[in-house]
Every structure is written in structure tokens, then in C-alpha cells.
């Protein structure tokens, strides 16, 4: 059976007329999908694991999450809260500052850090730029904000949401784990940004050999 024959089975109208009881309420990144290339390279991107939502960097550049930041790159993705009451995020960002130095010339060439704010409404690109002064990100490390719904899509899709809705609603209950991966080789793991800069940096050695 080919595609045409499948459509001609008459199943499609039947399916469309059936009442749909989807329970998921997450807004789909439909608008951005329209601009996506026909065949994104990695299977994860194809399967919606790496949504191509629009974001803005602390350098005030408009970017697409997948096309511009992740595609064919080695990346580390974390979510941060400027007003982190336990001090985990300042520690994480300070560690990343050291890691970018350890990575030397690889930074911005084949390794990129994507730090996404958990408060996109409050944190304008200008606010992020000011925050970035503390950590002095080199080229290759972007602090990112965007439309709240797009940031939320990323947070859930990338697995930074807590299974317990009550805990998830608590903004202070956010993980220090960062997702790291290589889109081209489709290798994805997580490392704690509370571990030492050396531990975090070593992760990247093992990712590309």
C-alpha cells in the first residue's frame, strides 16, 4: 500500500469526525514547525525532542532553538533563575564560566552553552545582558529568553519539568542538571552543574570521540 492508497481507504474522514479527547494542554510549536526544513537531520529533532522555537539571546539576536543553536552542534542546555534563593544557579553559572575557559578554542566552535531563563517575562534580553556581565560569557555561550509559551515548551520537552505538579509550580524547585548532547551523533546525557568545572568539562571530551 502506498500513501495515496492509504488516504483513499477513507480512514481519514472517519478519524477526523471521531471525537478527540486529547488530555495534553501544552501549546504546540506549530508556527515554528512551519518554518522548519523538510527533513531536520537528527531523529530527535524530527520527533519533536528539540523544538525549533524562536528565542532571543542576551546579545539581542533573534534565533531558532534547533536550527541556529543545536543543529549539528555539541551543546549544554540549562535553565536558570536569576533570583535563585538557594544559590544553586549562581554556582552553576560560575562553574560554566570556568568550563568555557577549560574548553578553550572549542568554545563557540563545536561546543555551545545554552542557558535559558525560567522567567522569560521578567528577563528581557537587556536584563540578561546585564546579568551576563557577572559571568562574562564568551562567544558560544548564550543566555536566552523568549515568549513564555516557547520557553515552557522547551522546558517540558527537554525534560526539565517535575512530575509532581505542585513541585513543578514552585519556581525555586528547579534542577541544576544540565542536558548535554551532540545533535549530529544523537548522544544525550545529563550532568550536574553543581559538580566541579573539571567534571563538567570532561563530559565534552567523551561526547565527540
Amino acid at each position, binding site marked *: 500500500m502506498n500513501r495515496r492508497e492509504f488516504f483513499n*481507504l477513507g480512514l481519514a474522514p472517519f478519524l477526523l469526525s471521531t471525537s478527540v*479527547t486529547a488530555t495534553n494542554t501544552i501549546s504546540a510549536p506549530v508556527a515554528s514547525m512551519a518554518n522548519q526544513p523538510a527533513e531536520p537531520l537528527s531523529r530527535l529533532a524530527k520527533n*519533536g525532542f528539540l523544538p525549533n522555537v524562536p528565542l532571543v539571546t542576551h546579545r539581542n539576536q533573534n534565533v531558532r532553538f534547533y536550527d541556529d543553536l543545536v543543529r549539528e552542534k555539541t551543546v549544554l542546555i540549562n535553565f536558570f533563575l536569576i533570583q535563585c534563593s538557594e544559590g544553586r544557579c549562581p554556582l552553576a553559572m560560575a562553574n560554566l564560566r570556568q568550563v568555557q575557559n577549560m574548553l578553550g578554542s572549542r568554545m563557540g566552535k563545536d561546543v555551545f552553552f545554552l542557558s535559558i531563563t525560567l522567567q522569560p517575562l521578567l528577563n528581557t534580553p537587556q536584563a540578561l545582558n546585564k546579568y551576563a556581565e557577572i559571568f562574562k560569557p564568551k562567544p558560544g555561550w548564550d543566555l536566552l529568553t523568549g515568549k513564555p509559551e516557547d520557553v515552557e*515548551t522547551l522546558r517540558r520537552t527537554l525534560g526539565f519539568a517535575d512530575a509532581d505538579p505542585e513541585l513543578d509550580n514552585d519556581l525555586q524547585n528547579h534542577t541544576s542538571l544540565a542536558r548535554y548532547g551532540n545533535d549530529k551523533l544523537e548522544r544525550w546525557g545529563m550532568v550536574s552543574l553543581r559538580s566541579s568545572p573539571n*567534571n563538567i568539562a570532561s563530559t565534552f571530551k567523551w561526547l565527540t570521540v
Partner: protein
Amino acid sequence: MSSYEKLVQNTIDLHRQITQAKLTRRDLLKMGMLSAATGMLLPMSGLSLRALAKDDDPTNPAICPVPGLAPPLGMISPPTRPWIEEMPRLVEKQTVRGNHPDNIDTGYYGYGGAPGPMPVGDAQGRGGDSKIHCLYDHPEMASHFPVQNMGHQAWSANGLIYCPPEKWYELREKQFDHVWHKDLPAGSGGQPAWGFDGVFPGPMFRVRYGEPHFVRIHNDLPTRNLGFGINQTSTHLHNMHMPAESDGNPLLPNYSGSYWDHHYPNVYAGVKQFGGLGNPNEGLGTLFYHDHKLDFTAQNVYAGLVGMTSIYDAPGIYANPTMGDYGDPEEATGWRLPCGPNFEFDVGLVFHDRQFDTLGADFFPLACFDGAVGDKITVNGKIQPFFPVKRRKYRFRMLNIGPSRTYQWALSNNSNFVVIATDGNLLPAPITVKTFQQVPAERFDVILDFSKYVPGTQIILYNRAEQTSGAKPTGKLLTPGVPVLKFIVDTGAVVDNSIIPSTLRPLPDISTPVTNNRTWEFKRRSGEWVVNREPFDRNVISATIQEGTAEKWTIVNGGGGWTHPIHVHHEEHRVLSYNGKPVGGLYAGRKDVISLEKNAYAEIYLRFRDFKGLYVMHCHNTVHEDHAMMVLWKLV
């Protein structure tokens, strides 16, 4: 055909049509069949069984409920008919040709070469042997693993323990196509998986105390993975008493195109104290080997990198002639446990739950660090298989490889399991139970006696524990449960010389005085898995322990409602108390996994013996382990 069966059949047909028509997700999305947000088939009649499945339907165990795509809400595997395929037996592992080291492959690079006590490399210190390769690429590891200490500890005539290999094996990690169930849209062609020697589960090793063995593990995995996994591996033989360089440390990857040599001295624990082969009361039995690569253990095991090992007592070296577990085909010596010719009645059972996506493709919830549970339970790589049995006793070596599911086993006719070993260790005496719990990494050796049944009798193994997320079971017991495996009793009489002995292996005394107390708290802290409040860090050694000493460890579940199966490498333990009370029955023996229920704490006794080096302790919900719930400790 009932209306339900009709629906199952229709759904199978529709899935087939979708696959054959090569519809993409985009097509499905356009047709309104796929939810854009979740990437899964919408729960509409005729498309997904979930549309009519009730929450309490035991054939429909729910999956990780994390919102978003981790994994898709309500993802359900395509339907498969039960009892269609026969359960395969594990392949029996053979030595290399002639059991001679000259016949071991020297690797792709043409250097590295013959197996020996020291790792070897080329003039640049870089060889086909991954030990050198790894340290060359990761000089920061040299503080833990100096190159000169990477030789095999028990293979040098100058060493205190000298056990050169007598049995020579090779394993190849490679990609192959596996059929989880022929009703899946992939059909009889199967879909890609990774496995030792290209099978899932990997082959069964049968080795003996007093016959040290050598395994060269070739990593022939491709660069391109399965959508999950990494082609760097570290093969850990779970609960083996062995030197650190052969432990399969998460920090020491074997690179694709390289090999790693493991040397297993096959001595009982306490060899320095007791001399000879050590203390036979420390004998192990049912072990398993699996990949242990840092941050990727769950993914790589899920890809298929797991197999079993059985170790048997050395024959004839003990004063007590009844001592022994020879795997004797005549079942006439030793304990006379069920075995039979070619191990026909000594059968490994590897339990593993999997999730398949809308189109029947393998799915691993990469973005769900609570754990991973699938709605299809496989036995030896098949979904709901059947297994013909003869009218006699069988020994089943039951292994739960997770990643995260806990089972509560029961038989359909409410008959008994005779448990002879926990975590592979023979108990002082068999224990008869109607049901028991099995957490990830635990092993139970049970004897089932089919001699009393009329031919044609069908007995179903049920899992009664409901588990809807990777973090823990719900606590609800299903009745009768999810059917997992069906035994079908054959016709005809057979010889059965095996017995169920009244006594087995005595427990070793634990009189070595405790010189150190340590507390380890396993907890979810602010959205990450930690031990003593800290995530894993390869630069931190959390305990340095003197060889020859005994310690009491208090293992604490720090709360949050999760359960954690904790595993310490190299040395197994005895449970002194659980929640302040002594333990009995199945938990009083020697164990290498301690299951911490929510808010539980346990005191365990460990002796650290014979070998030195860097080992780990971690949660064996491997998804927790990969998300930093692990510590390094060093035996000096």
C-alpha cells in the same frame, strides 16, 4: 471474536497500514491522527487502544506521567498478541577456539595484541587496548588510575593473589536487528538493537571457581546510535569479587574499534584471610554483566548491552563432599540442583520492560530522569512469550534488568516458588513463597516443579505490582496482574535426578569487628538525584577504605516518596537491620542490592577484601544512576 479482540485486530491492522504506507509524522499530523504536542497517536477509537482501556485494566500499565514529551503522555505501544512466540533460551557462551589465547583477536589496529597481565600499546603509549587509549585521551583520570596500576592485579606471579586465566573468551558488542514481537510493525525483520555477540540478552557464561577466566570485549558498535545510547562502553560483571580494573568502572570507557580485557580470578571472597581459593561460604552463583558507561548506563542497557553469568563451585576441593553446585548434568553430585544435559533445566530469565512509539519503533524516554518504564514486559527479549516445560523440576535464574520497574511475582495457579538463592547467592536453606518482590538488578533463583501437572497444563507468571512512573511502584497490587510468561507442560515422562536440598550454603560469619561507620543518604534534592547532598563528580572519592577491614554502612532514603535499589560494587553485604528491625527470609542472606522503600533506612555490614582500586556505589534504577546518584570509593 469478541468486540475487544476485534478492536485489537483492527488496531494491529491500522498500525501495519500506517507503517506500510510509510506515513511520516507530518502526514499523521495533517490527518489529525497525531497530537502535535505529544507526537503520539490521539486516543481515538480505532487508532489507539488507550481510547477504551480503563485505568485499572492490568493489560494496560500506564507509563511515566511527566508532562510534555518525556515521554509522550499516554504513549502506548502497538498491540501485540500474547503467547505467540516461544521464549528463547540464553545462548551458551563458548571459549575461543581450542580455549587458547593465541586464538584471541588482537583488534583492528593490529597492535595491542596478545592477552597478558599488563596493558600494552604502541610507542606513543596508545594501543588497541582501551586502558591506554582511555588514559591517553583523559589524562585527568590518571590520578585515579595510574597507568602502572592498570595491570591485572591477580595475574602477576609476584602478586599476593596469582590466578592466571584458564578459560579464554571474547565478546563482541555490536548492532543487530532484534524482533521484540512479530506483531510489531517492524515485523519479522526486527529493529536495530545493540548486544553482546549480537544477541539480546547476551550469552550465558558458565564459569567455575578455581578456573579464572579472561574476557576480551571488542567494541564493534557503530558511531550512529539508536536515537539513544553511546558507542563507548564499560562492561561491569554485577557482584563479581574482582579487581577494580576488571570491574567495568563507569569512568573507563572502551572505545568503538578498541577492546578491553577483563580478568576474573574466580576466587571466593576472603582469599587473603583463608588462603587457597578463599571462603567457599562466600560463593556467588547468578551474576549478570551489563554496560556501565558514565551517564549512559540506562540508555546502553536499554539498547541491549546485558547478559548473564553463572559461576559454579570448584569440584572436589572441599572436605565436605556434599558441598558444591557443579551444574552437574547427571544431577547426582553436589547439591543436585536442577541442571540436566546442556543446562536444559537451568534457565536464565531476563525481565525487561520496554516502550514502543506510535509506529512501533523502540522508544527510550531520554528526557525523563525519574526513570523509565515501558508498557511491554519482555522475557529473554520477547514480549509475553510461552515456554514449553517438561514434567520435572527447573531452576530459573530470574533477573530484573530494569531500568526502573519493580515486579511482584505470582503464579496463576497460586503454586509456590522455592527460592534457593537471592542475588545469586544460595541461601542456608530453600524458602518457599507464593509471591515475592524483585527490584531492578536483583536476582532470584527459584525451583518450579512441573511434575505434578497433567500434560497441557498452562501456568502463567504474573506481575502484580502496578507501576506508572519510573520513580517507584504505586503500591497497588493488581489481581491477577499483568501476564508475563506462560509455561506449557509437555507430554511424556522425563528423568529428574535433581532434588530440592533441605540445606544449602551456610552463611559466613560476620565477626570481623567494624572499624568504621558511614552514612549514605540517597535523595531527590531540588530536582536532582544526590548521595549525601552531592551529585556525582568524577574527581571526588567519597570513601577511602582499608583493605581487610569491615564497615557498617547506614543507607538512608532521604524521602520524597521515591524508592531506590542501592548497589555497592565488589563487595556484597548483609542487612543488619531495616528501619531498625532485623530482617528475615529472603533478605537475611548475602545481598548486593538493597531496596530502600520510601523513607526507609538500613544498616548493612560489608567487608572489603582481597583487591584494590576504585569502585562505585549507586542507585540501580539506572536512570537515577545516570543522573548523578552515584559515588566513587577506593579500596587501598
